[in-house]
């Protein structure tokens, strides 16, 4: 029985995880490193990768800072309407990325009131960089908050109260007591946000318009390459994204262990 179930589990991993992974690495590898490199360095691919990097860095910066304050607000504050904040933080997790994109188009698109107003003032959101960043911010908003909330709950207020009685100001207490206690979880959340930002596809596809060399991110480039039968281009960018996911996964495992030790 035990041997049979173990064999089934190995089979599950083989079919569902290793099979797809091996297929991409095998097929990609068959094109040869030189060809892959050539595909990666063509202007369209380079543009897409740089755009993805820019969007990810912006998203991580904004959502890490906002995440800390949102988590503090949810755990430490008490006010009417707090439930709404909680609901807003949870919402992106259950929304399909396409719907997230649609929602943003409906508010900031060129044919809406707000969109028309912004266009008049020379600000384009949909089919431009701000829209891509907004979509990525929406999708990744819960990640940092959800890492921090349980840690804040568990830590309680004792350390902060001790700092206050010793005469520290709220600002000093935040920097010297609260933030250091969140260090590992914050890093973990930030890495998760980074991985998710680099990989976002559906929401970005809807808001960006997928314009080559203008609003095409790396995942959109990979998708477009498949649609246009440029398989080598698709493999090259996919393998790079896969390598990045492996690295983030490794970082997250290491950070997870550090968190354990810290707690």
């Amino acid at each position, binding site marked *: *029985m035990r041997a049979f*179930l173990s064999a*089934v*589990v*190995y089979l*599950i991993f083989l079919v*569902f*995880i*290793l*099979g*797809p992974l091996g*297929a*991409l690495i095998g097929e990609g590898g068959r094109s040869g490193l030189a060809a892959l490199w050539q595909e990666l360095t063509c202007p369209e691919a380079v543009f897409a990768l740089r755009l993805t990097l820019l969007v990810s860095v912006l998203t991580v910066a904004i959502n890490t800072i906002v995440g800390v*304050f949102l988590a503090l*607000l949810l755990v430490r*504050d008490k*006010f009417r309407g707090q439930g709404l*904040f909680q609901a*807003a933080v949870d*919402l*992106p997790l259950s*929304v*399909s*990325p*396409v*719907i997230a*994109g*649609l*929602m*943003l*188009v*409906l*508010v900031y698109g060129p044919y*809406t009131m707000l969109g028309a107003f912004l266009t008049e003032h020379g600000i384009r959101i949909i089919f431009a960089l701000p829209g891509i960043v907004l979509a990525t911010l*929406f999708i990744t*908003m819960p990640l940092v908050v*959800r890492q921090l909330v*349980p840690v804040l709950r568990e830590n309680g207020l004792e350390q902060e109260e001790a700092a206050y009685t010793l005469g520290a100001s*709220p600002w000093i207490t935040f920097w010297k007591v609260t933030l250091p206690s969140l260090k590992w979880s914050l890093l*973990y959340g930030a890495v998760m946000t980074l*991985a998710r930002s680099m*990989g*976002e*596809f*559906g929401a970005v*596809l*809807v808001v960006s318009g997928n314009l080559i060399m203008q609003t095409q991110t790396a*995942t959109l480039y990979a*998708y477009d390459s*498949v649609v246009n039968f440029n398989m080598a281009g*698709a493999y090259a960018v*996919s393998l790079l*994204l896969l390598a990045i*996911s492996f690295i983030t*996964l490794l970082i*997250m*495992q290491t950070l*997870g262990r550090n*968190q*354990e030790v810290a707690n």
Partner: protein
Amino acid sequence: MNSRSSNLIIRSLLGGYLLMLVFLPLGAVFLQAWSGGWSGFWQAISLPAAIFALKLSLSLALLAALSNTLMGTLTAYALVRYRLPGKTILNALVDMPFAVPTAVSGIMLLILYGPRSPLGEMLSSWHIEVVYAWPGIVLAMMFVTFPFTVRAVQPLLLALDKDMEEAAWTLGANRSQVFARIVLPVLWPGILSGFFLCFARALAEFGSIILVAGNIPLQSQVASVYIFGEVESGNLAAASAVSLVLLAAPLLLSWLQTRIYPDNIKESLTSMVQAVREGAA
């Protein structure tokens, strides 16, 4: 500046951020879906292609969630209880689908099961079409939701005290009795929460499905892909109407879930997050 007014400023800033990012967009979908009144909404979701897409999404997500719940529970059990060679690597691989971009997952499945691959050729010689058909959609849904049940069940198994099982053994219970009476009741909340997470995530999935299944109305078009098509053709009201139906399904489910396990659910969610963090068991 005293702390009360600085609190108020922080609250307003965060409120503004969420208003811009979440509340306005959510409200806009409702308004747009209702722009033609109840009849317009009804008309949009009762188009044959819309009904087909919603039915396909719901039934395939159910199938994917059920099979992943079964496989995930088994995987978690083996990872915790059995002496598997290469266990650390297997445990790390569980999270792989979360880390890989969904578009890349789609490309992987396309290569593995596509018409030009040996596996795809073999399957199509048996008249099993995977790519551009429903099996491909289920495989894509299963791939992206694989970690959920494993990570929901694993911490509960780790926390389960072996004493209880040993007591049952000494009292003469057999293998299946111990599993059904002692182990399963403890795992049940995790299994259930894993199932609901899989189902919700599978319903929402887009990137891998559009690559594997394409966008063929009344054949392989799931709801998320249908919505995308309507947005692309500028039909925002119809896209919003179908979106509302798709948004309502997971909300309904999470309500149902809190009815079944009001106390356990928060616990099992936190333990899941912890399990993901823990990595190696």
